[in-house]
């Protein structure tokens, strides 16, 4: 082996070492950090999912949805009923007016009926 050959191998080894130390090692650290974050996030997600998919939670969600649906139906029926009450009130007012007019005509006509019997 010549001195040049030895120098050549040293330079190559130095290059490889520099690449490992200044490039690959930080990358590995970063990757390892991400892996640890992912692991903790998975654990967190698992806790949330367990919480949301439990029978108690399902019951609450379903009960809430049922009540919301019933409430919406009741409100809609109430609105319809209030509207029909309005219609009935208008009809009542119209009928009362008609009765008033008929009563006055009836009174006028009745006045010409016979006087009391002698």
């Amino acid at each position, binding site marked *: 082996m010549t001195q040049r050959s030895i120098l050549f191998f040293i330079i190559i080894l130095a290059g490889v070492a520099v690449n490992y130390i200044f490039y690959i090692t930080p*990358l*590995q650290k970063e990757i390892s950090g991400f*892996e640890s974050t*992912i692991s903790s996030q998975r654990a967190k997600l698992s806790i949330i999912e367990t919480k949301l998919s439990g029978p108690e939670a399902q019951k609450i*969600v379903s009960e*809430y949805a049922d009540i919301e649906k019933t*409430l919406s139906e009741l409100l809609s029926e109430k609105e319809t*009923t209030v509207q029909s009450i309005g219609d009935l009130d208008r009809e009542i007012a119209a009928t009362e007016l008609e*009765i008033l007019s008929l009563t006055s005509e*009836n009174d006028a006509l009745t006045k010409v009926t016979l006087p009391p019997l002698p």
Partner: protein
Amino acid sequence: MTSLKTKHSIIAGFILGVTIFGCVSINLYYLKKQRDIRAANTVLSEKIKESELLLRSFEEKTTLLPSLKMTLASTSAELEKVRMDKTDRKNKLLNLQKQKKDLEKSTESLRSRTFPPGAERLVFAMTLKAPSSASLSLSNLGFGDQLYDEEGLIAGEKEFRQTGTRPSNIPNSGDLETFELWDEDGLVGREPTLQYSAWIGRLSINFQKVRIYIPAGKMKKFYLKAKISESAKIGNRHGIGFNGADFAGGFHDQNEVEKTVIAPIFSIGNTPTPSVQFYPDFEFNGMPWPLNKSRTVYWQVINPPKDAKIAVVLQNLLTKETYVMKENLSPYDRHVTTSPSSTKHCLSANTNCFSLSFALYNVKVVLYRGEQYCEKNCPEGFDVVSVAGTSKSFLIGPQEKYSQNADLIVKSFELTPSPFMWKGKGTLTIVFKNIGTEPVTENNIRFRTHNIHYLGGIMVFDNYIPKIPAGGEFVYTQTIDNDPPKLAPGEINTTYKYYSLALSCSPEGTANTLQTIIDVDNVVAEIDEQNNLIEKIIYCKS
């Protein structure tokens, strides 16, 4: 030496190449791994965000649930109140409609009778009812004909108003001649004694020596027939009344005789006034007309105008939409049958099927001239003739049938105390039972209690029952009042929330028949539709 150098250079180059390639490959591997793990981390972060949102929403729901339940309860209570308000309004409207109907009937009879000179007509009708405790033997029935001018003033009244002096000798109009007295069985008297009072322009018509018997508690109709003189004065009005009768057999108190005078006024006229009279069969008494059930409307055109045709139309009182049931009828046609239907049933129906909704309708008899009946933008020559009394209101029910094997009955009907006191208060208990093999599934089953002591019956009250399982019962109790002077029959006393029974108490101990019908709107399709009624006789004590 040279070839050795070359060989070394080649080896060194190869080693350098392999080393560079190895480094680059490793670098690329770690770069890819870094990219993948970043992407996975981003996806996971998004998922966590979504899950957190879901969790927050769930926590909100958990917090809101108790207040939502309270809102639901209060909304249910409000809805119940609104429903009750609606029922109250409906009841009020039905009462008003009945009142209106009675007024229309009375007004019609007062305003629409016109007889032409030369005609022979029934000019007066009345009923006499014997007391329930004694029969009546009548002789010498007397009637009076009071003359009015065309303005409706008693003869001589106009002069009195103008001059301040009443004429002492009002000439007899001579409008009426050839009187005859008829009852339901035929002629009972003719050639009455006529006596004229010139002071008040009143003609007394006495049928002497008639012999008429009315059994205790029974009623008899009397008709006075007359010929309108050829020279009768157009515009004169005549008011005819009952002057009284002699009672044989020791009974003389005329106040005990119930009398009902029908149509006491008529006018002399060239052109008889046309009017429409609905037959009593078409008395709904506020009872809804269920969908898909055919009903017949009966009417009669009195004094039909020349060339007029008839159309019978239904009109929704709210939307004013109209449906022609039948047109091109002659004035002598008197009925039409139709079946108001839901949209579903109309799809397969042939004729006279209307898609109607739950609402108040008028059935109108329209007299018109023209080729065909028309409502808007009518052609020339089309003309609606103005005629009195052409419409009747009724309710069309929304019911469809569901049950097939339910069967509702009124099991019992008790009123305490017994006898019921005049102006008294008491309790009514009605037991309803489903004797069928299936439960009743409908929500809107109504029952109604009538006092049928009166002609046509008077509604005391109505209400709804809940769903009843097969074999199950429902007991209804109601505080009840009998104070007719304060309450119209069937009217709710808003102060005490009592209902009036409208019992007739004259004479004391009068038997009133109360009737309760379940499923009056025919909502339930029952095994037996004929067993829905119960009757109870209630005695009234003063």
